[in-house]
Structure formats: C-alpha cells, structure tokens
C-alpha cells in the first residue's frame, strides 16, 4: 500500500505527484526511446500509428472528455491539418515552420466554425458536426486547385534542418518525430489541466449555469476548447497524411470521425490515458481481427463492415459494463493492488442518477 504525504502546495501542481509516478513515466519514456532497438521496423510503423491516433484522441478528448462537447466532425479537422501542412510546404515553407503553423491554422478555423456551432447543445452539436464531416468531403473536391480533389495529394519528404524523414524508407526517424509531437501534445494537455482554463473546461462540462455564475464566459471558453482541440487534431492530421503517404477527399471520412469518438470512449472519457488506451485498440483491432479470421475462416475472405461492426460491439460492451473505459478498468485494478488486501467490491459503485430535462416549456 502506497501512501502519499503532501508537504507543499506544489505537490498538487507538479507534473508528477510523487517519485514513484516520476519513475514509472520515466521508464515509459526510456522504453519509448529504446523501442527501435527492441522491435523490428514493421512494428515501429504500427506503434507510430498508435501514437498518431493518440494525438488525435488527445485533441478530441480535450473537447469531449474535458469540456463535454461531442464532436462527430473531427475528421474534418484532421483533413484541414493535413492539407494545410502539405500546401504550406508546397509553397516553400520549411517543415519546422509549416507543421506548427498547420496546427495553429486548424485551430483558428476550428474556432471560427465553433462560434455558431457551440451555441448548440448536446445532440444538436453532434448533428452539426456530422454535417461538417460530410461537407468536408465535398468541399475538398470543390477546392480541387488547392487540394488535388479526387486524385489527392502525396506529401513530400520531411526535412528538418537537413535531416530527412520519410515514413516508408526511414520509419525509425518518423517514429521519433511522432513521439516528439505526442510528448508535446500530452504536456500541453497536462498543463491545461492544472491551470485555470482546464478547470473552466471541466466546469462547463458539469454545469454551465454555475460556471457562468463563477465568471466563466461559456461561449468564449468553449471556443478556446474547440480551437485547442482542433489544433492538436490538425497536427495529428498532418502526421496521418505522412503516415498514409497519399490522401484524398475520402481519407478523412465520417467513419474516421466516429471511430475517433468511439476510441476515446473505449479508452476512458476525460483522461489522458484514455486517449492512449483507445488508440491502442483502434490501431491493433484490424490486425487482431485479421489474425483471428486467418485462424478460423481463412484470411482471404473479405467481410465488409467486420471491423466497424466488432468495434461497435466492443464499444457497446464498454458503455454497458465499464463506462469509464479501459482507463477506468485500469484504475480499479491498480487501486485493488494498492489497497491490497483492503479493497472492497463496491468502492466504485456508481451513484444512481436521474436525468432531468434542460427543456422548459
């Protein structure tokens, strides 16, 4: 059993609450660095994929898990990030400028879109963002001169101060690039959580009325959440473009938006861990399924909708039996070990709640 003694206020503000956590995350970082020596290049590619999804997940988590605004249109922002990055590089900006800028531009576009959208509540916002996701496809086609339309685009090789990075020929370098972006985005997220803005996000999620009474400007704060969320998502989109090697109007479809949302629910809404756990599921599910299929009915048989169907099934099971997602399950297991042998079964029992309408007639 591990007991925490806090001796100063900084204990609650620090990045890592105690030495033990610092050691755990230090070890995790070391492992991430050493990974290319431990596994072969194919799997490095797979891990890169997980990280890219995790970045996208962090982006959506900030909006949905933290601020409580459901977006089913985040694929549109992946697309904006991806196309912006590619176009900026095509007009001659170096990657080191174009890439951050692509995220910022996505964030700005997201904020502009958010202003009308965030007056909407709950399902209305969900539906508006669905429409956004569908429209993105058509708009990319209409903007053919910039986006290449249906035939799509192929991102150039990345050069950072003369160092060349390419996803297929140099997967290890690309992995380190993605890892760096992941760490930066995670730090941003963590910093927000321990500062006033992050708390304002959570306040809006739980009660808009009392957040207002405490002086939180709802619309402005939601816009910031949307903007930051889109910025991170934009970076993920740019990386996805490099990872795929080619993209067109159909790459960032509504299904991607939905997958992203399901991913963070499976991982565990409202936590950084959740984005990563969810990303692991999303990235490895197709592999697991094809192995399973190969073992049972032969790998060559194509079953359309299998992946999304199984994914949907997993999600339903999670919502029913573990609404806090994989991270919630992980917390329970950890607490059980930490408190051993004092853990009780009903420690995590949820309070019975009733839904009350927000509608007054």
């Amino acid at each position, binding site marked *: 059993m591990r007991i925490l003694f806090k001796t100063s206020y900084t204990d609650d503000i620090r990045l890592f609450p105690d030495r033990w956590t610092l050691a755990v995350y230090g070890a995790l970082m070391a492992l991430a660095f050493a990974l290319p020596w431990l596994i072969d290049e194919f799997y490095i590619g797979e891990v890169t994929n997980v990280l890219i999804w995790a970045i996208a997940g962090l982006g959506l988590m900030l909006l949905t898990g933290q601020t409580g605004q459901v977006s089913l249109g985040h694929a549109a922002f992946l697309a904006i990030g991806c196309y912006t990055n590619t176009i900026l590089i095509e007009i001659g900006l170096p990657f080191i400028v174009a890439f951050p800028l692509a995220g910022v531009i996505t964030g700005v576009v997201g904020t502009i879109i958010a202003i*009308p959208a965030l007056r909407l509540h709950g399902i*209305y916002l969900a539906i508006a963002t669905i429409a956004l996701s569908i429209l993105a496809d058509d708009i990319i086609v209409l903007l053919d001169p910039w986006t290449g339309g249906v035939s799509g685009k192929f991102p150039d090789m990345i050069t950072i101060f003369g160092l060349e990075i390419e996803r297929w020929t140099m997967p290890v370098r690309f992995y380190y690039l993605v890892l760096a972006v992941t760490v930066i985005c995670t730090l941003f997220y963590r910093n927000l959580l321990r500062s006033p803005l992050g708390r304002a996000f959570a306040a809006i999620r739980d009660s808009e009325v009392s957040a207002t009474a405490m002086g939180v400007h709802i619309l402005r704060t939601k816009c910031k959440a949307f903007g930051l969320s889109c910025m991170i998502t934009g970076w993920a989109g740019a990386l996805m473009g490099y990872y795929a090697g080619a993209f067109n109007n159909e790459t960032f479809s509504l299904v991607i938006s939905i997958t992203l949302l399901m991913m963070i629910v499976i991982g565990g809404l409202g936590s950084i861990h959740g984005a990563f756990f969810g990303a692991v599921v999303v990235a490895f599910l197709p592999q697991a399924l094809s192995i399973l299929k190969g073992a049972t009915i032969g790998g060559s048989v194509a079953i359309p909708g299998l992946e999304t169907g199984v994914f949907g099934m997993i*999600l339903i099971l999670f919502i029913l039996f573990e609404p806090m997602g994989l991270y919630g399950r992980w917390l329970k297991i950890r607490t059980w070990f930490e408190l051993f042998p004092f853990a009780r079964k009903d420690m995590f029992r949820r309070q019975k709640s009733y*839904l009350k309408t927000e*509608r007054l007639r």
Partner: protein
Amino acid sequence: MEFLQLLVSGLANGCVYGLIALGFVLIYKATEAVNFAQGDFMMLGAFVTLGLTNAEHMHLPFWLAAPLAIMIMAVLGYLLDFFVLRHLFGQSQTAVVILTIALGFVIRFVAGVIWGHEPQTLESPLAIGDIHLGSVVLGMADVAVIVVTVLMTLFLYQFFQRTKLGLAMQAASQNQMAAYYMGIPVKRVQGLIWGLSGATAAVAGILFASKGAIDPNAGLLGIKAFAAAVIGGFGSLPGALAGGLIIGVIEPFASRYFPAGYSQIAPYALLLIVLVVRPHGLFSQVRIKKV
C-alpha cells in the same frame, strides 16, 4: 411539368426521410435521447420484410409479411431498450448518442452477414404500376409512401396529444424522478416508445424498399433524416415530417439546377444554416434550464 415531376418524387423521398425522422422525434420526446441507429433500424425493417416475403427466402404473402415485420421490429426495439439502453438510465445524452452509433455499425454488419451486400429489391405489390395524371407520372410506391406517411404522422401526433400513455411518455422525458413519483412506470414507458419507434422504422423500411433497391448501407440515409429532424425541431412530430419534405424536395431540385458538386451539399448546407439561424429548429420549443 418537369417541375411537378421533380416535386412529387422529392415529396416521396422526403416522406421516407420524414418517417425516419419521426422515429428520432419519438425517442427524443420520450427519453430526451437520440437514436443514431434509426436509419439502420429502417434498413433492418426493410430486410426483415424482404426476408419474409421474397421468393428466394420465406415467400410469405406481402400483406402478411409486412405486419409481421412491423411487429418483429417493434419487439426488437423493446428488447433493445430492455437489454441495452435501460442500463444507461439516467446517464447523459452523449452516452446514448455514442451507443446508438455503435449499434448502427453492428446492425449494418449483421445485416450484411445475413442478407449480403448486393442491393436487393423487395417484391412488393406497391412497387408495381404507375399512375398517370396528365403528363405527370407517379409511381404507385410514391403515392403509397406519401399517404402512409401522412397517416402515420397524424396517428402519432394524436397519440402524444390525446392518450394517457402519450402524455406519460412526455412527462417521463422531462423529469424522470418526478415522473416516477407520479406513478409513471418510466422504464416500461421508455421500452414501449422504443418499440413504437422500431415499428415506425419498419414502415419506413418497407416503403423505402418498395421504391427501390435496398442494401445494408441504406441506413446511412438516416443522416439525411437527422437533417430533417433538426430542421423541423427535435421535439415536434409534424416538424419532423415538414423537415423531411423540405430535404426531400431540395435534393432533386438542387441536382437539377445547381452545378455538379454543389448539389449534394445542399441538404447539409441547409441544415447548418438552420442551426445557425434557428438553433432549435423551425418548430422548436424553448429550452432554458431552470436553477
């Protein structure tokens, strides 16, 4: 004349959207949740009917198969609520949104496994024959769709306004705890409403399949029905129908008069405009939280 032709086919399509939207509104009125799988329910309803009546399957007479399919879908809706949605009782709308989206994926997958992914046609007596009115040619199916939709809307509207059960359903959505105290069996009421929306989806499915081919991805039509429900305002049954008709009519006209590439944007652009201008739909209720 071309104008009239476009209008009628638009109206018929719009009725299908309207019927799916009715399903959304039903569940929204009663549980304040939205069933994102309603389009897939519609698809499933169509396939169940097809499975019962088509020659290569069970080959029952259509007039027996259709009510049977409606009943099966109603039971399915009820069971779904009983086994799945009831566990989400009291949780946020978001949980239900995500759950029903996932459900849609599962239904699509299951339908694909059972009936395959090739488009199939329902052997429906509605699909045969045209009606000539001057130079306007109306498909029997189109007429049937319009008539049935209007009747359905009237029936459901009366149900919510007049019957005790309908009022109980509304009460249950607005304050679960208070409804409990008033002796309304909230959970059973919600089960019934899911059954009702399942039946509505089956009707929509049968009509849709009578108009053309059906495949597992037909459920994606639900997205257009969302647009319909939003435009009409989620709380209003006639609004849902009106929204469906607006979307249905806009489509053929947009593809006739707009340049290619812009036409398929029209319904969603309209949706976004409505959301910006009148965030709660054209026939909305006021929504303010009381503290």
